[in-house]
Every structure is written in C-alpha cells, then in structure tokens.
C-alpha cells in the first residue's frame, strides 16, 4: 500500500479520524473551520505501521489534543505531505565500514520520514511529526564544535537488492570516496537531509538525491556533493517535497570530524 504523498484531509464534521505511519498514530478532527490534532507513538519494538486515514470512534483514552489550527473557509482543505527530517541524521552502520585507499563504495541508508499537515492555499506547514520518534545526537569533533542531529542505526547495505523498503523511511544512496592513501574508517556519518528533497520512484519507494562524500583521511578534508536526483537505476522518480533549506549549497566542504565525529 502506498502512503499518501500529498493527500487532502477531507473529513466530516465532528468525527475523529486516524492514520498511522511508522510508530506514529495521528488523530485529526474538524469542527467547522477548526482542526484538532493529537498523536501518540507505539513502542519502537513493534512492527511499523502504514494505515490510511479512517474514521475512529473517538480519541483513545489518555491521548490529548496537542494542536488546533483554523483555516479560512470550509473549502480550504488541509493536505498530508511527507518530508525529510529537519536536522541532519547521524547514520550508524551496523558494522564498521573500512574503505581502502583510492576506493569508492556506495551504501544505501534509510532515514525516517516526517508526516506534515499543510495548508493548501499557502503551503505552510500547520503541524508535523516524525514517523519514528527520533533520538537526538551530536556530531562533531568535541562537545563544543559540532551540531545537533538525529541518530539512526542502519544496516547500510552496499547492494541495492539487499535494501529493505518501508513506507515510513526514505532511502539515500551514499557514495563514499576515499581520496587519501590511508584506510578510511567509518563508524558513523552525518547525512545532511535538510538540503535534500524527497522523491517517489516507480515502485512507490521513497528516495532522496544521491550524496557523494569525498574524504581524505590524512587531511580530514571532506567534500559533500548532493546530486540532482536519486540513483538512475531506479528509473523515473517524481519529487514530492522540496528540501527544507533552499539556501544551502548542494556542494560544500567541511572537516571530516564534523560529519564523522
């Protein structure tokens, strides 16, 4: 089942509706021009969910309305959309990755999506929740230099056929190029999701643009280049949401410690 990429939230007056994605249960109701939103997360140990919007009897016990928003008129129906996370994701491959000098490797990593409720007229985000409650982390050489990010453990296979697709995660092809004369050891890596866009490909899988990291382990210099689209072998891919940070360059240089620290 394909989860909606931009679906109108056309719901009746006074009834609660529910949808689920990943670990997230999102509840929404309408009273005229007012929309109420509530959410809850299931245990991360349970199987991920993907349920379309459907009527429910009422809010589950103990769940509180978290947000209320008002739209101009009844014809202004909000829409669901999917988006990548608002911070970089620190990707931790299940096993240490070592790349020989002057070699390259492509890893496929997946990161959780965010479910957004948008106003159709202005496109502004009214509410958004991550499909999986993210764990905060820090990427940097020390506790002073660096930046906040989310963290995700991933199997990071290097073969496309081994990639496991889920409806609440987007995949990114990470090309790692070792430009130095030493072995490049990767324990974790910061993925700049805020400069990437979300695509849906023919097989209803979510992908981002591919990202290339050129690293020189001797100097620590790293160049990150985001390509214009997902891997070509996927066939045609349709962009369903733009990058959160439009101003940031798709190519930038940084210190190795600031993305792998």
């Amino acid at each position: 089942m394909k989860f909606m990429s931009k679906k109108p939230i056309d719901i009746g007056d006074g009834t609660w509706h529910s949808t689920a994605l990943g670990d997230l249960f999102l509840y929404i109701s309408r009273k005229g021009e007012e929309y109420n939103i509530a959410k809850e997360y299931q245990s991360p140990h349970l199987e991920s969910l993907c349920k379309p919007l459907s009527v429910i009897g009422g809010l589950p016990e103990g769940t509180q309305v978290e947000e209320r928003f008002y739209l101009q008129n009844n014809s202004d129906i909000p829409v669901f959309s999917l988006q990548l996370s608002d911070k970089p994701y620190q990707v931790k491959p299940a096993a240490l990755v070592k790349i020989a000098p002057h070699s390259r490797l492509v890893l496929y990593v997946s990161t959780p999506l965010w479910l957004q409720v948008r106003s159709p007229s202005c496109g502004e985000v009214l509410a958004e929740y991550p499909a999986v409650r993210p764990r905060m982390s820090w990427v940097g050489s020390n506790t002073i230099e660096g930046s906040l990010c989310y963290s995700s453990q991933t199997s990071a296979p290097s073969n496309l056929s081994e990639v496991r697709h889920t409806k609440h995660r987007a995949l990114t092809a990470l090309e790692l190029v070792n430009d130095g004369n030493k072995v490049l050891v990767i324990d974790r890596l910061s993925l700049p999701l805020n400069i990437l866009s979300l695509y849906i490909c023919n097989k209803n899988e979510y992908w981002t643009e591919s990202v290339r990291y050129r690293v020189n382990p001797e100097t620590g210099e790293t160049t990150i280049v985001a390509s214009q689209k997902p891997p070509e072998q996927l066939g045609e891919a349709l962009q369903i949401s733009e990058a959160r940070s439009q101003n940031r360059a798709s190519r930038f240089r940084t210190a190795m410690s600031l993305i792998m620290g």
Partner: protein
Amino acid sequence: MSELMASIAVGEWLRAALVILVGFFVAKLVSRFFRRVTEKSFTPHHRLLGSTLVFYVVLFMFLLSALKQLGFSMSVFLGAAGVLSVAVGFASKTSASNLISGIFLIAEKSFEIGDVIKINEVSGEVISIDLISIKIRTFDNVMIRVPNETLIRTVFTNLSKFALRRVDIVVGIAYNEDIERARKVLLKAVQSHQRALENPEPFCIATQMSASSVDLQLSVWVLRTELKDAKSELLIAAKNALDNEGIEIPFPHTSLYVGQHTQPLPISMVSEGKEP
C-alpha cells in the same frame, strides 16, 4: 558671560542651531547605518550599544562645531573639559571602573542576554548588559544587579554557553551487589531514554567506596535546554531500573551502642493492652 552672549549676533545663534539640527540628523543617519552594517556580525545588544555610542560621538562633534560658530575658543573649552573630567573622574571612580569593566565584558563576549550565569551563590538569566552593571533574573523571579567590576574580578560560570550539558547522577549500591551488573543496568536504562543523547555516549563509572555503599557515577549528555527535565527523568529511570533488577540502594547505616560495651540493650516482650 552675559556680555559675551549679547555680543553674538542672531545670525550666529541661528547658524549654530542649524549645525546642531543637522548634526542630530547626521548622527541619526550614521547610527542607523552602523546598525545596518553590523546586522550580521554583531549581536542585537552590541549593535544597540554601538549605535548609541556612534550617535553621541557624532552629535558631540557637531556640538563642538556649533560652539565654535558662536565664537567659543576650543582650546579654552577643551582645557576646561580636561579639568572637569579629572574632577568627575575622582568623584566617580567606582562608576568609571564599572564603565571600563563593562566595555571589557562587552568586548570579551563571555555571555549574552538570555544566557544563564552563576556568580558566587547567585545564578539566573542575564536580562541586560549595560555599561555599569548587568541585571540577572533568578529562577524564582528576582532581579539582581551585579556591577561590572565584580564580574571582571570574580570567577563566574556561563551555564548556557554550549549546546550540550552532562548530567551526573551518583547512585550508591549495596556492597554485596555485583558492580558490573549494576553498571550495565544503569547504562541500559539511560541508553533508551529520549532525553539522553546517543553521541557522546553515556558512561557509568565506580567512583568510591563510601560508608554504606559503593558509589557509581552515571553520566549522560543531554541538550542544555532540557537539562532540568532530563536530570529528574534520568534519576527516576536509574532508580526504577535498579529497583526492577532488585539491586539494593542502601541508606546510611549507623550502629548504636548504649551503656557499657559488653552489655546489650534490655529487651522485654509486652503483651497487647497490658502495662509492662
């Protein structure tokens, strides 16, 4: 003096007034330009202070020019200003010291408005940084004024300089407990906690063997903005984890001896409702 004033023609007065008026607008323009130029490089507070300083310096120069228009001798005026400044300097030694300290503090950028700092026994949020003093709002909503000179002389702590803080929780476990198992239980409890950062990783070390317990220090990195809640929640999580695993957290034991060393306390059985 009145003769001097009377000798100045009306035209001179008007010209001087015009110079001051023009000076006022020029000073405003220059100060606004300063604010615009420093928009990205200065903090709002520094921009405000800088633009005020620029405004008064420019206005002062126009004032001097206006006085010259009126026929005042600048050398006499500056001489008088020098004598006056020495007199004012002696009279306001503390204020001058605070003023200079304030300039150093602003230049040093040790803290900004909104930072939480601790000076001696006082801690709170900085609500204003002025040339003479800073104002702190304590957590129980009391305003405290700290002279800048004190800040220059005293060690103070900026609690919100960096994005991350470490929460240290000291837990004592009974001497008969397995320390390694207790460490693992504590680490597991916080590793899955939402407020605990995954990297830098939490750690747990045995710190000392105290009177009644072996003390373990559980250190967890959290977001500075979540420090208060994180401290409480992590402490609860640690306590619950030890309770669930049946690991004893001992309280201080005291042995009490009464009377002679060899004689035990007399104990007698008392039946209900009867006097002994």
